[in-house]
């Protein structure tokens, strides 16, 4: 599926933040030794969600190209799967987390590129969150 309107893109970003927050909540329950790290990710996700929603609501304008800015932004490459098997091991979970973060990072950076023509604040926030996801990948790697 292709995302074309600003509303679709923002909602997809919110969905990614919600889903990955749920994923880290589950990890915090399962792997107590890294509870704090995972919960800090959850907190950060909530903040990201707020940033994304706020930037959209604050800069959306009927006069700009909100409906026509995201040509060729397909969602299939960025869909994440967060279910965990009962007996999943920490190394497997971290691998999965890295995969999720890589997809989310790519989504934000690509969406930032595609949205450059219309609202300056939106690509800036997307880029910022994308970079943060890159940093998160490094943190995850340090846990393994």
């Amino acid at each position, binding site marked *: *599926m292709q995302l*074309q*309107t600003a509303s679709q893109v923002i909602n997809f970003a919110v969905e990614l933040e919600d889903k990955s927050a749920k994923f880290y909540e589950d990890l915090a329950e399962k792997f107590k030794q890294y509870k704090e790290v995972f919960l800090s990710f959850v907190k950060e996700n909530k903040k990201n969600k707020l940033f994304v929603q706020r930037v959209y*609501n604050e800069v959306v304008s*009927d*006069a700009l*190209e909100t*409906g*026509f800015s995201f040509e060729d932004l397909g969602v299939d490459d960025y869909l994440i799967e967060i279910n965990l098997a009962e007996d999943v091991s920490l190394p497997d979970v971290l691998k999965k987390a890295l995969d999720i973060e890589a997809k989310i990072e790519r989504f934000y950076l690509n969406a930032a590129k595609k949205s450059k023509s219309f609202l300056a604040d939106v690509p800036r926030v997307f880029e910022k969150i994308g970079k943060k996801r890159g940093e998160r990948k490094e943190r995850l790697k340090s846990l393994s």
Partner: protein
Amino acid sequence: MAVLEEPIKEPLILKNYVDGEWIESKGKLHDIVNPATCKTIARVPLSTPEEVNEAVEKAKKAYPEWRRTPPLARARCLFRLKEILEENFEEPSRIQTMEHGKTIDESRGETRRGIENVEVATGIPSLMMGYNLEDIATGIDEHLIRQPLGVFCCIAPFNFPFMVPLWFVPYAVASGNCIIIKPSPRVPISQVKLAELVDEAGFPPGVWSIVHGGGEVAQALLEHPDIKGACFVGSTPVAKEIYKKCGQVGKRVIAQGGAKNFIVVMPDANLEKTIPALMTSFFGNTGQRCLSGTNAIVVGRNDIFYKKFVEAFVDAASKIKVGYGLDESVQMGPLQSKKAKEKVLGFIEKGIKEGAGIILDGRKAKITGDYPPDCFLNPTVFDEVTVDMTIAKEEIFGPVANIMRAKDLDEAIRMIHTNPYGNAASVFTSNGKFAREFQYRVECGDIGINIGIAAPMAFFPFSGMKDSFFGILHGQGKEAIRFFTESKVVIQRWW
């Protein structure tokens, strides 16, 4: 992609908002239909002349105390309103989509633009300041004070049901006046929702009122001796009439009329960026916007560039997803009513009859989702259009684009000036000289340079010239403050 939840579940019976109370009207009720689903979502009264008089009387009664309320305290009401609007951002946006048909992105954009006017009006303690000069003669000082006038009215159009009254109302009340809004009887629900939030913000009763109705209510407001001035946005014939009427009876007036906006595409334009901007310009709000592009003039004798432009334009227009605006994937909603669609169809027929080439026919709508086709059209594109054709001269107010050619910028500007309207015009170019020439010479109030919709921000006036605007001062920003206040000059000397 799922369709967002509708905030209106059962048909509403709308009431007038007078003296801080919701009052049932004795007038006849008229159905408000969601143009995408064709379901009735509300019934609006056509208020009686007595109800108009009552609203004016209450507003007049509220005026002296509101006028004496310090500007900072008035600004605080607006700050509270701004906060409440932010908290309730989504509901009025979805209501706009339900009553008007526009997409949810467009509705949210409209809500944002409305809020921006509230934000600007909160600056009233600075905006309303006068000026002074000591010693205009020895020992004599002179100063200017801006004072409110009393009760105003705002007669709103159907195409921006939430935003347009906010071009005026926040400035009217911030400067100490009271105002009565007559929403368009086609799309009155957004203003009702807004008034509910105004009520929550704690404005004193009578400062901000709503009286529903059609032409008769507008007439009664305009003829009322206690109404000091009127703000109107709508068609040119009505704007002219209102301007005349207000002139006869000595009322202030801002009367914004129709438009026919030209977009000039120079051969050096960046097409990759120009085309998405033009899609929003021509087809955003389903073309029902006084700043919509309607006539695209491609400049130059270069046939390759012309062909490339036309192909890219038609390709992008043909891909626009049409459907119910609450479906987030939809890029263009329905026309606001069946009648509006019929009017647009009539123009398309005329275009064909007068010899324009129809290169994208949007008459048979392809709709995303299962909705009745009654109000839907897809984008239509004509080429080989000349300035004397009806489709090039008259305001279509629908998703129809006309492509024309000019040999150079001079000819393009001459073509623009054949048209009686002067609301907006844009040029797409990479050349500063072309842009400067365009801005300097084109007789339109709102100029876009590489901008498809030259919509002034809340802190700039919403301009307009020729048959698109009647009056002197415009809505929004400082000009609105000037409109809603009288300049009083005091010259003083003390012995």
